[in-house]
């Protein structure tokens, strides 16, 4: 591609000297990370303005191994929703009700996924809504979901969850011929059902995937995914004999946490550094990963390194299984790695980085569908191409 060609390098040198008239850093992540952070890299390798909201929630949820940035991230979490709360309080008849507050209160539960928290919060919106017409209710709901989404634009599951909720709740044929109150109660009913289903999703996936874990197998896991953990936990509880290879999961070392949790369940675990994947792949029987989002092509967007592992597994003919709830299905279609909203994360190299050295801070990568074997979702075990089928049925 063109950035590999020599002419591009020339172009880039020119463009580095000449300031851009447009804003390429977002569209062409090659130009990111922005140079202004380089000055203070020596003192502080993780300037907080580089942290995406996506990463902050991840950090908060997964209780990632300590680092000085964690405090900052936490501080950022405290700060970020606050300013948005002020602007997006839906004042309804004197009694202020905020989706964001509701969302944050749900989010405090460690086991609850972000999208499910959002779904719960939106259900609360319907309950507290004092609109008198269906249209009003719908507009309010739309507003609430928009404010939720704007709180964290980088989170795919949050956006997808909100969109799906809107679809699920508002697309009932019952709405047309009932009076408003019964229609509203029906909406609430549907909303609660949806929340319930989303909650159970992880359990369903764990059940479905048991068929694929056979005794004596070796499973390679990347990062910490609550769904994958649930799968492994269920397998361990049903007395299956297997061992798990955990990658370290740099930069947040989420693999360490997974190995901790698994060790508590007496599952034999081996910890690898991220670069040892290819070395160990011949021992591995299957690769299990979670997903931040499942996109329309059937590929997944997940923690950095997933693509690499999938590539290695594919070339060694090992199956790659993805465990993802259906509320992560998003109407996105990245064509390549750079064709996504970048989610940046801080990386701690342990040593000071000279200011002239660029650091790649993207937190996620895109794994195309041809490298995935199966997706375990609460809709069943799907091949990647079915994802688009489901999405078309849903959104069109």
């Amino acid at each position, binding site marked *: *591609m*063109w950035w*590999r*060609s020599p*002419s591009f390098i020339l172009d880039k040198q020119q463009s580095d000297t000449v300031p851009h008239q*447009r804003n*390429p850093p977002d*569209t*062409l992540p090659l130009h990111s990370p922005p140079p202004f952070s380089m000055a203070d890299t020596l003192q502080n390798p993780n300037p907080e303005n580089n942290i995406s909201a996506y990463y902050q929630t991840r950090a908060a949820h997964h209780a990632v191994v300590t680092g000085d940035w964690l405090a900052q991230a936490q501080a950022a979490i405290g700060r970020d929703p606050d300013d948005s709360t002020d602007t997006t309080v839906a004042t309804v008849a004197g009694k202020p009700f905020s989706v964001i507050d509701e969302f944050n209160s749900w989010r405090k539960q460690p086991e609850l996924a972000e999208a499910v928290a959002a779904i719960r919060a939106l259900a609360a919106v319907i309950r507290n809504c004092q609109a008198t017409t269906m249209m009003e209710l719908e507009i309010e709901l739309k507003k609430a979901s928009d404010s939720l989404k704007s709180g964290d634009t980088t989170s795919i599951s949050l956006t997808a969850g909100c969109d*799906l909720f809107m679809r*699920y709740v508002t*697309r*009932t*044929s019952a709405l047309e011929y009932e009076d408003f109150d019964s229609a509203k109660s029906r909406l609430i009913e549907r909303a609660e*059902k949806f929340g*319930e*289903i*989303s909650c159970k*999703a992880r*359990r*369903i996936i764990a*059940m*479905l995937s*048991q*068929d*694929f874990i*056979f*005794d004596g197998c070796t499973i390679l896991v990347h990062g910490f995914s609550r769904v994958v953990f649930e799968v492994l936990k269920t397998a361990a509880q*049903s*007395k*299956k*004999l297997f061992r798990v290879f955990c990658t370290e999961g740099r930069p947040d070392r989420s693999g360490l946490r997974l190995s901790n949790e698994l060790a508590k369940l007496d599952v034999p675990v081996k910890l690898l550094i991220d670069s040892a994947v290819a070395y160990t792949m011949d021992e591995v029987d299957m690769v299990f990963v979670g997903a931040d989002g499942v996109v*329309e*092509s*059937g590929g997944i967007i997940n923690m950095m390194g997933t693509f690499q592992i999938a590539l290695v597994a594919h070339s060694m003919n090992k199956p790659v299984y993805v465990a993802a*709830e*259906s*509320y992560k*299905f998003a*109407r996105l*279609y990245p*064509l390549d790695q750079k*064709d996504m909203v970048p989610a940046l994360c801080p990386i701690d190299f342990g040593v000071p980085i000279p200011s002239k050295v660029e650091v790649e801070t993207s937190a996620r990568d895109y794994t195309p*569908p041809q490298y995935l074997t199966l997706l375990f979702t*609460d*809709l*069943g*075990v*799907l*091949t990647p*191409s*079915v994802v*688009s*089928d*489901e999405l*078309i*049925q*849903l*959104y*069109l």
Partner: protein
Amino acid sequence: MDARRATTTVPRVRQVGFFTPNAPPAQPSRTHSFPLDSSSPPLSNSPVNNSLSPVMIPPSRHLSDNLVHRATSPLPVPEPSAFRRPIRSHYVAVVGSYNPTESLLGSSPPLASPSSRVIGDGEFSEESSAGWFRRSNSAKFASSFSGAFDLTSVKSSETGGFHQVKKPVVAQPKEEKSGAAAFVEPQINKVLSSSSSTKPLKEKTTKAERRALQEAQRAAKAAAKDMTVSVGVSTSKPVKHQPAQRKDAPPPASSIAVSDRKGVERSMEKERRKDIPAPRMQFDDKSRVEKAKKRAVVNQSEARNRVELFRHLPQYEHGTQLPDLESKFFQLDPMHPAVYKVGLQYLAGDISGGNARCIAMLQAFQEVIKDYSTPPEKSLTRDLTAKISSFVSFFTECRPLSMSMGNTIRFLKSRIAKLPLTFSESEAKASLCADIDRFINEKIVLADNVIIRHAVTKIMDGDVLLTYGSSCVVEMILLYAHELGKQFRVVIVDSRPKLKGQALLRRLVGKGLSCTYTHINAVSYIMHEVTRVFLGSSSVLSNGTVYSRVGTACVAMVAHAFHVPVLICCEAYKFHERVLLDSICSNELGDPDALSKVPGRMDINYLDDLTNKDNMQLLNLMYDATPSEYVSMIITDYGMIPPTSVPVIVREYGREYLWI
């Protein structure tokens, strides 16, 4: 634990797209893939079974779908197609819009459902055994249709439904098979009458397939005879309704029944023959070509030296028939002048490009309809359909129809057939004209707008976009992206002999885009600096194959090799349910002389005196088929979809135009 690899029961996986249909029959439901005999605790109350999953929104997508469901589903299920739960046997037969039997059942809901409900388990046992018998008898038939008979699983019928295109043909033998019990006979009659009133979708089958079907029916009949004895005794359930005829039916009675059924079958056969259009004309079949020539209006003289592999396609000497046709203008009174004009424009190549040809044809038909008056003692529906068919065959003589035009004609004919009988002639004409306008507007103009909006999101600053030939959608995308102020560069790849890209280049350069123009010979050189390939297409087929201007496959293949994403821009009305594996079976031959003559270059005349030699054949193909693995994305009016989802669109929306 001893349960090592006990889970050899291979878990069920739902698939879309293309896989062997003869894979082991699917388990009842994929939500059940947790086997009960595995070592883990049984999960009878697994949450899957008693809850809807979040993504199962009953789609109230079209009124049409709902209507069909409401009409067909025997139980008050809100939206059967959305159900993912294991479905109990009694409404299995009529689930979803993809149901193969629907084209029949849809017209006569009350008869199909009670029969399937009454027969219950018994029917299924009979069903499967008959299916096995058939499979052994004619493997071809069974392999292509096995999905449809696997009624034990909704899922599998869904997946099976994917590859089979000939739905009503499948449905009828099924009906017949249950006709082993004599009491279904009146139903068949009913089916017949109802199916004749509402015309099912036209389906295409080849001769061989029909023969296979006949054989299968014969086999089924033989099987049914045996079955009435064996099954009738073994299963008591279905017998309850007709115990006398079933259990101890005396030989004469049964023979009467059989002969009776034969009559029914023959008329069914006739009916079916009416439904199935004649297979495409094979131009290497001499007698047929002769016959067709006698009918033909356009007197095309055939080129002599044709390439062996492409003899089934028509190839004519170009440029000779125009004056001939013009002189005949006044002798051809049945031909409407608008149709005549468009036909001549096709012939001369003045109108080219899928959308342009389609719009021109529709507008000509609009003229026809405006000037039409029903002759005495004829009905508008029938006479107009016949008339349009004759115009279509005229168009075909001028230039073979594209697949999108085929879809459009199908739309128009279905609109004519669905005209309410209460309409007066002027009302009918007005409604048809409005329909045509709406089709042009919604399916072509607005669809293009939507495609442009989608495609622009994939163009970033600094991109280098490659396009091949000249596609109007791609041109609009490029211009719109330029209007939005995106900074990008365009590479236009072109090829002889049409050199359509030059016109595109001229228009783009005129608008101020920075362009590179090259011929297809250099595509592998230029590809390494390209970031996206945008291509138009003439048609997209059910297996994701893209049928487009010759050379497209080559460009897509090179792009694939360089890991450059290939985006196909195509309106959904060009999607076709057919499957194409190569570009030989269905193609169009252009003027062979265009290859040998280079305009304006008198010095390259090496082939001038060779064109009539027997040992030289020139092949000027117009289209080629790009396999789906070279395509990263198809941008259509329903959004951006992977090529594997084309059948979903065809299935879900293929009938939509029958309802607009």
